[in-house]
């Protein structure tokens, strides 16, 4: 017989949680705290000067604005693409919905670096797309420059983030009682009117959740912009530069803390949305 130890339910719970908590503390909380602490410590001890300097400098404010605007554009495009996909997935796909979800999620199983390299290969000057357009189809006389254009960077970001939006919207759309739409049809609303009067308002929460998720990830996205360029100067890129090129760790820490605050604000918004849903 193995000896048994009697633990109170509380102790047992603490013991079961301990590995995860220790892991999070060591590899997540401590680096974060260490990093943001760096931004508050100057030569004379605690200082806020880096934040006041940063937030009054028009160049840095421009970088923040560009980061937010790029993320907003990516979010808008992603949601516009995701809604019809989610609608087809929930309402029309039927027995093919499993296959559709597989195709949505499969790209997420590949490293984002590999996917971004894929875009590079496809859209390089002598890449596959240009070869089709010029040699195979003869639509163009000379190859187009795709890499380092804003459009391609945005397209690549959208490609990565659309599945998140689709899944958020689909899960809410799934919960919309179709009888509500039938009720609207019975009362004389056309199908399009029914969509705007009933379906869309009832899925606003899904759109909100998906949009915040996409926005948050786009805000912190780095690899895509590094590899595909596009002329964007965003916070993550600047942080990378400060750490690796300029080696101004304090400024880099300041910027990452600001990025973190933006992310936390988004999370807070999302929680508020979820709470409203729960009512």
């Amino acid at each position, binding site marked *: 017989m193995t000896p048994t130890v009697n633990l109170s339910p509380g102790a047992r719970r603490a013991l079961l949680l301990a590995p995860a908590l220790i892991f999070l503390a060591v590899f997540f909380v401590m680096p974060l705290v260490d990093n943001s602490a760096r931004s508050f410590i100057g030569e004379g001890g605690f200082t806020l000067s880096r934040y006041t300097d940063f937030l009054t400098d028009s160049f840095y404010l421009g970088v923040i604005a560009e980061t937010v605007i790029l993320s907003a554009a990516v979010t808008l495009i992603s949601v516009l693409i995701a809604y019809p996909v989610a609608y087809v997935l929930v309402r029309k796909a039927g027995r093919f919905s499993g296959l559709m979800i597989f195709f949505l999620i499969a790209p997420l199983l590949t490293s984002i670096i590999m996917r971004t390299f894929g875009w590079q290969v496809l859209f390089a000057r002598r890449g596959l797309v240009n070869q089709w357009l010029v040699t195979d189809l003869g639509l163009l006389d000379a190859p187009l420059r795709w890499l380092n254009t804003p459009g391609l960077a945005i397209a690549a970001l959208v490609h990565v983030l659309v599945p998140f939006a689709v899944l958020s919207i689909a899960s809410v759309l799934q919960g919309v*009682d179709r*009888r*509500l739409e*039938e*009720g*609207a*049809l*019975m*009362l*004389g*609303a*056309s*199908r399009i*009117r*029914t969509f705007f*009067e*009933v379906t869309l*308002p*009832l899925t606003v929460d899904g759109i909100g959740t998906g949009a915040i998720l996409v926005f948050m990830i786009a805000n912190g996205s780095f690899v895509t912009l590094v590899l595909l360029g596009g002329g964007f100067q965003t916070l993550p890129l600047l942080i990378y530069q400060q750490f690796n090129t300029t080696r101004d760790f304090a400024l880099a820490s300041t910027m990452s803390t600001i990025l973190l605050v933006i992310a936390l604000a988004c999370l807070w918004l999302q929680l508020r949305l979820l709470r409203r849903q729960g009512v």
Partner: protein
Amino acid sequence: MTDTSSTLTLTAIRKTFGPLTAVDSLDLSVEPGALVSLLGPSGCGKTTTLRMVAGFDSPDSGQITIGGDDMTRLPPNKRGLGMVFQSYSLFPHRTVGENIAFGLRMSGASKQVQADEVKRMLDMVHLSGREDMYPAQLSGGQQQRVALARALVVNPRVLLLDEPLGALDKGLRESMQFEIREMQQRLGITALLVTHDQEEAMSMSDQIAVMHGGRILQLGAPNDIYDRPETAFVATFLGNANLFDGRVQDGLLMTDAGALSLPARPAGDTATLSVRPERVVLGEDAAALPQGLRGRITAASFRGAYAAYHVTLDGSGTEIIAYRQADTALGQTSLGVGAEVAVGWPVEHGVLVTGPAPKE
């Protein structure tokens, strides 16, 4: 108030889903101002029939007309019907007032007309002053009244009721049955009700269509269907029935229970006799009846207005169910379990039905 512009007719309707025939050669006509129920167990095709009238499904063949206008291929929003769903289907993101005004808004009525009509309808369903509440703040019964008001405010040519009371508890269900029926009669509106609840069908309908396997087995007034079932299925689906299968010989039905007198001459040489439990007589009064059966009471249950008895017949062991009105002193039942009683019924209270007794 009624005119033929709201006569609903279904002609030779057929609908299949893959290999499954949901509705088969169905004919039905609902007169203006009448309420007809489609009654049957789940899967009998009643809901599919209603959805075809509503326009959510289209029949493979056949025709649906209202007041002579062909509706068969018209989309639901062009049919001018009203519908009340089992789940109420009120728009959760809109107030009670906005829910009721929805149909008027879709037809382009002015704000003033909408407000007046909402008020009038709320008065009619006894919910005055609740315009600004949200559906989730109302009880189930109140939500169903709002759903009814929302369907009626557009003056639909036909009102469709899809198990409208299925989500309510028993007491409320009964009062809502009366309320909906009263309103339907007062407005003289043509209505089609789908239900699996035989009491609901009987208390609300002018006519009941009992459905089974995608067909209408019998159509008639509630008392007609109850007292004159044509098939064993209808006899047992609407209320309870004792069924006796047997061969016909010398004007008698030879059954396991014995030779039973018949109320009429059957068409073939086998027949099924149906006797309602409340028509079965137990005890001394049964001694003079022609069946001459005897049995022992194996179970008795008090049901308030009446008592239900299970009687096992001597010899054959056939089980019979009998209901007896309370005729004893308060607080007593006249017959106890184990009592030996005579069993019978007036011959004319039996009904010949076709089809074998359905297996439970």
